[in-house]
């Protein structure tokens, strides 16, 4: 890897890290999702500074083409994140459904209470 590529990757990884943490501070991002992204960006920094880590890890695991190891790992990680999002989405969906039901039931109870009040006034 060329020096320029190393520097670019380091800057990008650090930049994303900084940006994610800042979003948490501004309360635009919940810290649990920030943690998810930091798990990816933080290890990128040593990898960018010492690219030999990838080659050595590949050799250790018996992978012929070391970058393939990196690609498969990152695909796996992204797959994990997407599945996690589906899970979160499902939870959110069932919660909004529950909220809708809750509001409808509250409206019904309010109507009943108002009708009961009117009834008392007339008699």
């Amino acid at each position, binding site marked *: 890897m060329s020096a320029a590529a190393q520097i670019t990757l380091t800057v990008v990884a650090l930049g994303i890290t900084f940006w994610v943490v*800042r979003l*948490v*501070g*501004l309360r635009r991002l919940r*810290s649990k999702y*920030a*943690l998810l992204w930091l798990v990816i960006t933080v290890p990128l920094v040593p990898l960018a500074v010492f690219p030999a880590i990838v080659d050595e890890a590949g050799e250790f695991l018996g992978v012929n083409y070391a970058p393939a190891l990196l690609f498969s790992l990152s695909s796996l990680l992204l797959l994990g994140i997407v599945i996690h999002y589906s899970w979160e989405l499902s939870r959110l969906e069932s919660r909004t459904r*529950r*909220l809708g039901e809750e509001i409808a039931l509250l409206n019904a109870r309010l109507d009943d209470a108002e009708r009961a009040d009117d009834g008392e006034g007339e008699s």
Partner: protein
Amino acid sequence: MSAVAVIPAYNEQASLGGVLAEIAEIDGLVPVVVDDGSSDGTAAVARNAGVACVRLPFNLGVGGAVRTGLRWALDHDADRVVIVDADGQHDPADVAALLGAIDAGAGLAIGSRFAADAGDYAVGGTRRRAMRILNRLVRMTTGFAATDATSGFRAMSRPVVEYLAREYPVEYLADTVEVIILVRRAGHEVVEVPVSMRERSGGEPSARRFRLVFNFLRLLVGIAGGVLVGRRDGGRS
């Protein structure tokens, strides 16, 4: 002058009744139970005791329940709020001391198990070490020498309630530790009051050990974000 006792409760039907009976003994304290999506008779216990009960449609966690309670307190013109666990761990006899600290000018008073003249309270090894690290974290970021940063037994003044009703971090650990940092940075005084905590009289401990690391890292990210933004804003801290 009225103080509200916010009692977050998640499946605490076994212990809630006893806690409410003890709180009813305290003059001028209005209790409100926040039923955090319980599947047991928690809400019925509150209703039978004639206590206001806010029922959340699903479980929001202690932080979410406390924030709901703070908003209820604001709606009912509370000038001070004390948070008391429904599991019987917090001794209502200490409520007076916590509210007293608020009357003496503090914004946030934390009931500490480990302050110099507090009663005995035993915690296991991992938990104890985690608590020490969290206390140190608070001291490093704010200079406040906390001895029990994760204690949920707290009282707060009206301005702090107003602030936290908007800003309360709902995540576990953040709802106790980060709150101290936020309140200090917002310019309020934070003090500790020695309290004696009892064994839980019912319910399950809310945090499992294997989640501790995740919760801790999440807290660090949250605090780091606050520090980063605070520094850039300059004037906010």
